[in-house]
């Protein structure tokens, strides 16, 4: 328990550091949201000044940061300058979309990766060739090929923005799932080689472990050797990899979101950075950081559950 408490404390400190760094970097960058609007001939000076007055009066960086921290603790991340909406509600919707997409992708990649990676004999070599082939193709190209294939097959329905306002009826869920298939497949294929590679590597090493050899020498049933000796032996690095995957759920899907027009966090953040919509950027980066930390924490907890030696060291 003390270990867990320490980990959470560490996480909070790193979150604080991330938010500070984010704030400092953004204010160090030249210009702000209005500097480009000023160049726009269609907007009068009065309008601009009125808009500026609506935002915070100019205060020092530290003051703004403390003020932001206070409101962030209350769950208020300020308003977006370009959307004129509270950042919290804007983000939560986008985050839900992105999570849906990348969780489906991650899940698919791991299921496929474990199944293919655990194969043996000539099929394993085939998988290895396939993996290196897949690895050498850039992700956007893969996604484009998928998109093209879908268009040829006429299965691509126009993307409607999935919102929770439509209610969670079965029909809505079905249409959502239908639309999720292609982009999440693109994500899964992008991530697949990494998973397969690590699964294969881990299993090759685990099959030669002394404990596994002893199990074979005792003539245990094959299935039991695989499930109770080889897989646990190979699991530790895979658990860490899985944690990393969970951690990058919010940040890994940018390409796919842009290509498929998926209204996720990545697109929103990209636009916000381009127009310097500070509140969105800070909150978005913070959410990614939280996800990353949560993913690592999850991996640590899983490792703790899986490996009795880690439990012992921790106590």
């Amino acid at each position: 328990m003390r270990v867990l408490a320490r980990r959470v404390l560490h996480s909070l400190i790193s979150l604080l550091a991330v938010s500070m760094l984010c704030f400092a970097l953004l204010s160090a960058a030249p210009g702000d949201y209005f500097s480009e609007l000023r160049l726009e001939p269609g907007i009068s000076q009065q309008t601009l000044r009125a808009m500026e007055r609506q935002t915070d009066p100019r205060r020092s960086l530290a003051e703004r940061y403390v003020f932001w921290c206070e409101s962030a603790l209350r769950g208020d991340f300020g308003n977006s300058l370009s959307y004129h909406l509270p950042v919290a509600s804007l983000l939560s919707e986008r985050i839900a979309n992105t999570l849906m997409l990348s969780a489906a992708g991650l899940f698919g990649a791991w299921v496929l990766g474990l199944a293919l990676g655990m194969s043996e004999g000539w099929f394993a070599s085939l998988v290895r060739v396939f993996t290196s082939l897949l690895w050498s193709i850039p992700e956007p190209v893969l996604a484009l090929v998928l998109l093209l294939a879908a268009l040829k097959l006429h299965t691509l329905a126009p993307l409607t923005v999935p919102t929770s306002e439509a209610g969670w009826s079965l029909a809505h869920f079905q249409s959502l799932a239908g639309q999720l298939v292609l982009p999440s497949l693109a994500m899964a294929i992008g991530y697949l080689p990494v998973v397969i590679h690590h699964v294969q590597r881990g299993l090759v090493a685990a099959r030669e472990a002394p404990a596994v050899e002893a199990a074979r020498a005792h003539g245990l049933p094959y299935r039991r050797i695989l499930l109770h000796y080889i897989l646990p032996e190979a699991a530790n690095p895979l658990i860490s990899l899985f944690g990393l995957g969970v951690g990058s759920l919010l940040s890994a899907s940018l390409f796919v979101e842009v290509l498929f027009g998926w209204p996720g966090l990545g697109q929103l953040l990209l636009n916000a950075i381009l127009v310097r919509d500070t509140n969105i950027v800070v909150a978005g980066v913070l959410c990614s950081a939280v996800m990353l930390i949560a993913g690592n924490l999850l991996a640590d907890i899983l490792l703790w559950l899986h490996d009795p030696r880690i439990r012992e060291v921790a106590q």
Partner: protein
Amino acid sequence: MKPVLSIQELSLDYRLSKGKQVRVLRGTSLAIGQGEAVGLLGPSGSGKTSILRFILGMPSPGAETRCAALQFEGRDLLRMTARERHTLRRNRMGVIFQDPLSRFSPFRRISRQVQDVFPRRYSRIDTLRCLSDVGLADPERIASSYSHQLSGGECQRIAIAQALVSEPSLLLADEPSSALDTVAQRHILDLLIKVRAQHGMAMLVISHDPATLLALVDRILVMRDGILYDYDPPRSTLRGSQRSIRSKEIETEVPLLEVRNLRLQHGSSRRWRSWLESHQPHPALQGVNLAVRPGECVAVVGGSGSGKSTLARCIAGIDAPQAGVIYFAGSPLLHTRPLLLRAHLQLILQDTVGSLNPRLTVAQILEEPLRIHQRRPTMSHIQSSVQKDTKDRINRALAAVSLPVEYSERCPPQLSGGERQRVAIARALVLHPSLLLLDEALTGLDHELQQSVLELLGALRAQMGLTCIHFSHDLSQMLLVADRIAVMDEGRIVESHPAAEFSRAARHPASLRLLDAMLAKPEER
């Protein structure tokens, strides 16, 4: 009597890199009768384990075996499929491996791993009974433990229990006791003798130690030049032959190495750091005093955790002591020391797998210290002569540890444990050190090899006045080797006596414990 196992015309090649092959066995035959115990004796790297794995049907990687006939209980094993061999292992054969700790999965409780071996139905009571049958006093605790929570001796007992579950007609044991400390070794041997009397199965025991085999088996075969011969035990080993000449030399002289009040605590000294790391700081050295005269051979003997290795590491300059001084030839040694001094103090470690770079060939491993310690001349004609000299020194070092020159092209993974240890010794000798620190350096070697290394060290001592400090747990061996024995316990040297008088003069409980363990060891016949 119909044999349980018979092997005919077995030959075995090891495939090396670049298509080379080494012939290990050349058409040798072996038969084991019902209830007979046969020992297989041979130096490390002679292919003992490969024979055992061939019998099991799990050939070692890189080994090529050919065999005219392999019969087990009248069935031809060579005609069987892999799956049939697997079932046979489950029902008719039992195996015990060398390194018991690593042969258990760290993720599965011992009770589960024992239950896995049971053929069909089992209950917890069966498991507990089979654990208590092998002399484990507290089966409940053992069953609910993980392997890393147990000692090597306990793990080996569990392994024996696993091997006995199926009532095998043949028990194969690969160095069943050599990875254990002396006390546990004795217990395991006793247990195996008892088990054999109870179950009456045939046994094939592999070992590099004749004493182990003599205690255990009816008949010993020794591997020499790829053929198995009957073994004729020698009358006496090396007891008292070369020693005792040099005990009364040089009385008062400046010690080559003197250690004064050396202290070291593991873990960080800062409070908040140690809180974060949640370790209890454990003092490893608590004021060690030791003086070694030039040409002397001192053995620092103690149980595991007594701080021997830490002391060796401090003297070698790997660990920095927190207090105390080390004097070398009269002048204090700092933790950061000049290259020249480092060449004079060489450390040989027990774990050769970890201390040799697996990617370098033996020649490169031996060349590396020479390259580091010789400033490389830039003029080409000198360069060529230096290269020749380097090659010369490498070959001489290899010859000194009796490794053939062909080995210089192999890499450590292609060597056996004993051969790797010899390479490690050669690497230390190649620099002509004046002080050699051996941290359990003889532990992994087989009997003959230990003797040849000891003879070699003796010769070097005579030639160039080499000084040795052995750090070891094995008192019986050190009594034969060293001039003086210093006993270490809980981070201190508790007493020190000349080797000849040690058994009479020792008073401290730690020394008495070591003497007890030594006496309990099987008497060498």
